[in-house]
């Protein structure tokens, strides 16, 4: 009789589903709904490189000292510079950073004496071509602009 009632009222099923629903408590959900929900990126995350510009006058902080290029294990940084005859200082002409070979070890930002080169929290580095992974000075200063999709 009891067994019959249990079968009719689906007690076992309810008990089983209780376990399921308990784990479905929203505070237990760990899966992130990327890209609808942006992941939390740590402050120190080493992602896409950026060349910082001085916020006061809009000029680059880079002094073209070439230390990042020397520190890079993969030799993927090329710093183009020119000696300014007036100030006798090096002026940055171009800066290429090949992210297709980069392993984001952070040695270049460690080496930078003026904190101009920085690995930022941007992580969406996919591109449609190999050339797209090579960042020039403009992309490095403005930051990468991945396509934003709506949901």
């Amino acid at each position: 009789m009891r067994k019959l009632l249990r079968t009719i009222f689906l007690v076992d099923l309810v008990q089983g589903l209780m376990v399921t629903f308990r784990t479905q408590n929203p505070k237990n959900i760990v899966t992130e709904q990327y890209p609808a929900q942006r992941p939390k990126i740590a402050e120190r995350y080493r992602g896409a490189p950026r060349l910082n510009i001085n916020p006061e006058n809009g000029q680059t902080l880079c002094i073209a000292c070439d230390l990042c290029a020397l520190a890079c294990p993969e030799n993927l940084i090329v710093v183009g510079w020119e000696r300014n005859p007036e100030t006798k200082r090096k002026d940055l002409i171009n800066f290429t950073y090949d992210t297709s070979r980069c392993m984001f070890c952070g040695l270049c930002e460690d080496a930078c004496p003026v904190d101009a080169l920085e690995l930022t929290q941007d992580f969406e580095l996919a591109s449609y071509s190999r050339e797209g992974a090579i960042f020039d000075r403009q992309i490095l200063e403005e930051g990468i602009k991945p396509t934003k999709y709506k949901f």
Partner: protein
Amino acid sequence: MAGTFLDSTELVLNMGPQHPSTHGVLRVIVKLDGERVLGTESVIGYLHRGVEKIAENRTYTMFAPYVDRMDYVAAISNGLGYCLAVEKLLNAEATPRAQAVRVILTELNRIASHLLWLGTHALDIGAITPLFYCMREREYALNIFEKYCGARLTTHAFRIGGLQYETYEGFEKDTNDFCDMMLPKIDEYEELLTGNRIWRERMIGVGILNTEDCKAYGVTGPMLRAAGCAWDIRKALPYSGYEKYEFDIPTGQNGDTYDRYMVRMQEMRQSVRIVRQAVADIPAGPIMAKVPKVLKPPVGEAYVSIEAPKGELGYYIVSDGSTQPYRCRVRPPSFVNLQSLDKMARGSLVADLVAIIGTIDIVLGEVDR
């Protein structure tokens, strides 16, 4: 015995390199008599990148990120071993604070590595649930790495002479929370697996390797401890301040797959214990020892090894006095442990072979380097 063509004959079968239970690109050529394994031969090298050659062409500092890519699930252990080896050559030692932080991160990494092993190994044997649970908990450890050094998998967390990054605000709390969370979770996995009849049937008595065989094959790590030999480099030849922490060496008796599972579960608990002790007492002070900017170790050679999650991970570095290592040999635990596969698998069933490959806990990035 005269037979028809239906009689079982020996069959040579390729398992891998693209097989989900070989944990990467391992190819095992198996000779079978029906379901019975007569012998195996491992074909490795699909992931060979020539790390040792790269080392000879990079400076000591530059090579540090590459070692993370060998055993990529335990990148921090790799980095620690390399840093200790170069520090030995330089005759320098990391500061007490750096050592404590190194121990914390390495032990967290050991837990993360064992979690990944448990998840994938259980998946091989047919238990799918633990994989998701293990991945979920591993995520918390990886989050700590991300907050500490900015990368999750191939961390490049340590530098030669100490640390690059100071601990972040809330590091102690995060780590303690992780420890508090981890112990009940390990119990949860054990609830799912340890007493599970299928799990026990599949594992007990499978892939036995006794202490003598372990020593003959050079097998180290949890596999050696499961055979009953309580040997752990952290205790035998302590490095990076491990002598200060109290922990036990879990051992098994039979040296079978089940014992290895139990040893790894116990090891996670011991790691939590070490992390707790280390976090409670991180000494203040500088994080970087006084090492020159350009590293030029004097002419010489040193072999330094650490207890990686998989076994003894050794670095033999020869310096010729220049900025680049003259020779950097890595003694990978997975490579040497994998050699015992043939010994363990002979006479077992094909399904057991999957369990045995899983139980060695190989990472092909390290086997092939």
